[in-house]
């Protein structure tokens, strides 16, 4: 019935990878670069995680016990910057690198050498950024959203290094995005039309365009900051006729699409895993694509919902309220479609599926709090409180991060040729699931009770919620060490895995042997309807 699938077994060991450090420094292989990105992002996750634990340690009880408020502000700021720019984004880029060429039947990315540069900029940029913590005056302490004039006139001296680091990260993202777009648009195997592409490829295609559109805006914002700080301009300085509020408009014009950049690939991942473990094709492929596209489009016109308390006129508030509420619709469609994929499937719950289902449930909870935040009059009570912190941590941690973890478990056999230990994987899941909910669910309540964000000490009525949250944070933090163990143990001692490591998995990558050959699809495969996508 189906045509013979032409999997490439022949060309894998013609030019094997180099040995040693040189391999990793100079590699132009998308698999190696994907691996680099993923390990780097894991390191950043642990670094940002340590900062979170410093925060949660101080917030364990009322009173200032461990760190001074100035240092606390550096921890909250750098925790945010590292998690957003160092953990989540590079992890998704790493997954793109590993998966996109294989999933479209291409031998590598369109621009392999630029790919290498895109990665190696990052350790340099983050090295610079983290070193600011040790400079005189301390590191960035103005929140990951770095509003002016706190981040310009009142910033520590290290702010200039922070700006350079942001520029470098932006360059890396832009180059990576160009690579991904060029690969997806031009290097698909014959027969893979756009509407036959795997969903992960679709979400990354759209994400890459979002990145191209908004990273220059971020670059613009920090450049204007640089000029205000060093060259006496007044973009954001009221004294010179500038406008602090304009900073917020520019930042959030970048910032809102940015958060969709951090979730669209997650939608793609989950759209592969749920069908695989439901043994049933994704429900409503076309709507899923249109939903992602509409979310991406809408993400450009909602930015001021981060600024409802800034003093915008009524018409502006109403517009942004309505536009923000609208995003719930395509997002809801996706959640319904995942549920419909599961419905009447034949489900099994290996670790990737556990993380994927948890993603759907917990991301939806984050979406609900997001919908509540969209209601402008109510937002006056939520804005800049822990209710917002709870919202974005739900969509980012059991949202984006769980999807990344799910992806690692799911494609682990394809990358390494080995199967990880399923029992330990499940243990990691349950510890993470419990940890993440104990950490962040109480924060809804402390926010509703009136606890502001970014404070190192708090009034007594918030004490119980904070203690609970801190306990959860330590559970969640340490359970990621279980993840590390599972990965390393799997790489060294896992049982060999089949090409189609998961019975229900579909996609060109699953037609390759496990581990996938160093150079795969040097000749394009034949694309069939059954194998094109999940």
């Amino acid at each position, binding site marked *: 019935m189906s045509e013979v699938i032409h999997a490439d077994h022949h060309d894998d060991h013609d030019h094997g990878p180099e040995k040693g450090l040189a391999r990793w420094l100079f590699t132009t292989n998308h698999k190696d670069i994907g691996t680099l990105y993923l390990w780097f992002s894991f390191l950043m996750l642990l670094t940002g995680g340590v900062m979170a634990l410093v925060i949660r340690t101080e917030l364990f009880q009322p*009173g200032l016990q461990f760190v001074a408020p100035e240092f606390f502000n550096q921890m909250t700021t750098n925790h945010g910057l590292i998690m957003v720019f160092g953990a989540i984004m590079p992890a998704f880029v790493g997954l793109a690198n590993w998966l996109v060429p294989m999933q479209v039947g291409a031998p590598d990315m369109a621009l392999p050498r630029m790919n290498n540069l895109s990665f190696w900029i990052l350790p340099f940029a983050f090295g610079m950024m983290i070193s600011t913590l040790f400079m005189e005056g301390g590191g960035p302490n103005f929140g990951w959203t770095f509003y002016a004039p706190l981040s310009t006139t009142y910033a520590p001296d290290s702010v200039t290094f922070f700006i350079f680091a942001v520029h470098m990260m932006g360059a890396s993202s832009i180059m990576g995005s160009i690579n991904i777009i060029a690969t997806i648009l031009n290097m698909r195997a014959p027969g893979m039309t756009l509407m036959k592409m795997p969903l992960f490829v679709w979400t990354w295609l759209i994400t890459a365009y979002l990145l191209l559109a908004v990273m220059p805006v971020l670059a613009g914002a920090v450049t204007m900051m640089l000029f205000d700080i060093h060259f006496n301009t007044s973009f954001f300085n009221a004294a010179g006729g500038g406008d602090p509020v304009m900073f917020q408009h520019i930042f959030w014009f970048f910032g809102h699409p940015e958060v969709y950049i951090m979730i669209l690939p997650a939608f793609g991942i989950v759209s592969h895993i749920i069908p695989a473990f439901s043994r049933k094709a994704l429900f409503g492929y076309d709507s899923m694509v249109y939903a992602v596209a509409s979310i991406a489009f809408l993400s450009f016109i909602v930015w001021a919902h981060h600024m409802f308390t800034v003093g915008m006129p009524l018409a502006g508030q109403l517009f942004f309220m309505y536009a923000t509420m609208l995003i719930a619709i395509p997002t*809801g469609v996706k959640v319904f479609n995942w549920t419909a994929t599961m419905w009447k499937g034949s489900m099994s719950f290996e670790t990737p599926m556990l993380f994927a289902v948890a993603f759907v449930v917990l991301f939806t909870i984050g979406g609900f709090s997001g*919908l509540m935040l969209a209601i402008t*009059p109510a937002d006056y*009570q939520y804005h*800049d409180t822990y209710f917002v912190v709870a919202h974005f941590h739900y969509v980012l941690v059991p949202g984006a991060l769980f999807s990344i973890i799910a992806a690692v478990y799911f494609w682990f056999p394809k990358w390494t040729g080995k199967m990880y230990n399923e029992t330990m994987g499940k243990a990691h899941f349950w510890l993470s699931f419990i940890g993440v909910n104990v950490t962040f669910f109480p924060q809804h309540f402390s926010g509703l009770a009136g606890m502001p964000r970014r*404070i190192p000490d708090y*009034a007594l009525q918030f004490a119980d919620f904070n203690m609970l949250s801190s306990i959860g944070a330590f559970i969640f933090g340490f359970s990621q060490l279980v993840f590390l163990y599972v990965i390393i143990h799997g790489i060294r001692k896992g049982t060999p895995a089949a090409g189609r490591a998961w019975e229900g998995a579909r996609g060109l990558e699953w037609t390759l042997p496990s581990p996938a050959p160093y150079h795969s699809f040097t000749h394009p495969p034949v694309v069939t309807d059954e194998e094109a996508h999940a």
Partner: protein
Amino acid sequence: MKQKKSFIAALLGLLTASLVNADELNMRQGVTNISHAVYDLHMTILWICVAIGVVVFGVMFWSIIHHRRAAGHEAAHFHENTKLELAWTIIPTLILVLMAIPATQVLIEMYDTGGEDMAIEVRGYQWKWQYKYLDENNNNAFSFFSNLATPKDEIEGRSAKGEHYLLEVDKPLRIPTNRKVRFLLTAEDVIHAWWVPDFGIKRDAIPGMLNELWTVVDKPGVYRGQCTELCGKDHGFMPVVVEVLEEAEFDAWYAEEVANESIRQEALSKTFTAEELMVKGEEVYGTFCASCHQPNGQGIPPVFPSLVGTDVVTGPRDDHIRLVINGVAGSAMQAFGKQLDAAQLAAVVHYERHAWGNNADDMTQPRDVLELSGE
């Protein structure tokens, strides 16, 4: 199976009920029409979300239990259903439109700032609030700063924390019941935000820009909020405390403050004793200076210089006074001439020059300060 389902239902019910009823878990209803309207909006959207969640998660969990491979369920083959997709696109849209209507109404009401009975200018500083009462001609009747009153001992764990830990100030804002109060919001340095949860109002205080808020409160009491925009080191230590007084009581207090204002002006020409200056100076220092220069005067060099035996406190008195009045541009040292009157300035300068073993042989009187500040 039936037992399992009813157990889960009971658990969910308990959870939701406690969510609604427990004071500590939910947003407060507050004491104004606006705060009640906001609370209602909040509860409406919350119930809508809970309902959608119960339905969607219910379907999902049912599926997880019944459509498992281990239970022998074979996968169906459908992967689209246009009618269903249309339904679950259109119905949520309708729900959102329904939600947007009351939200719009409340927002319009919040923007109706006219027809006020009194106006107060609220100014955010690093790290305290200043309140300026404006009379009918919009002149400044009197003004004062509202500083965190929680002692450092409580913050650093040396004594037990009081009931209103971190939510108490030396002098709260006072407003009358049943009168529309208009707040004009701005800031001295960076962006702050003024929030009183019980009134349901929050707005950013932005340097160089004016924002406005209004409220009408009919229930006397003390209402506490906090700064809600990261503004530097002590962002968590600049609470908002509003005392709402019955109208008659408020009017009496207001008259007293106006009278005090002229007395305060007179004090500027008084001559204080050394002891009076030390007592007053220590108080001013504790409120305005100690957070950076530390109670023991040693500061946290190099960002917050030491005041023990260093050049400024041992050098010329007038230079010291000017420094405190004008601040140091480009540093964290604010121009306290704007925040402290001549008597407070004289006292704090005198205190700094005579505390911690410092032993300047001069005195500082309010008139010395007035001379230097160009009066």
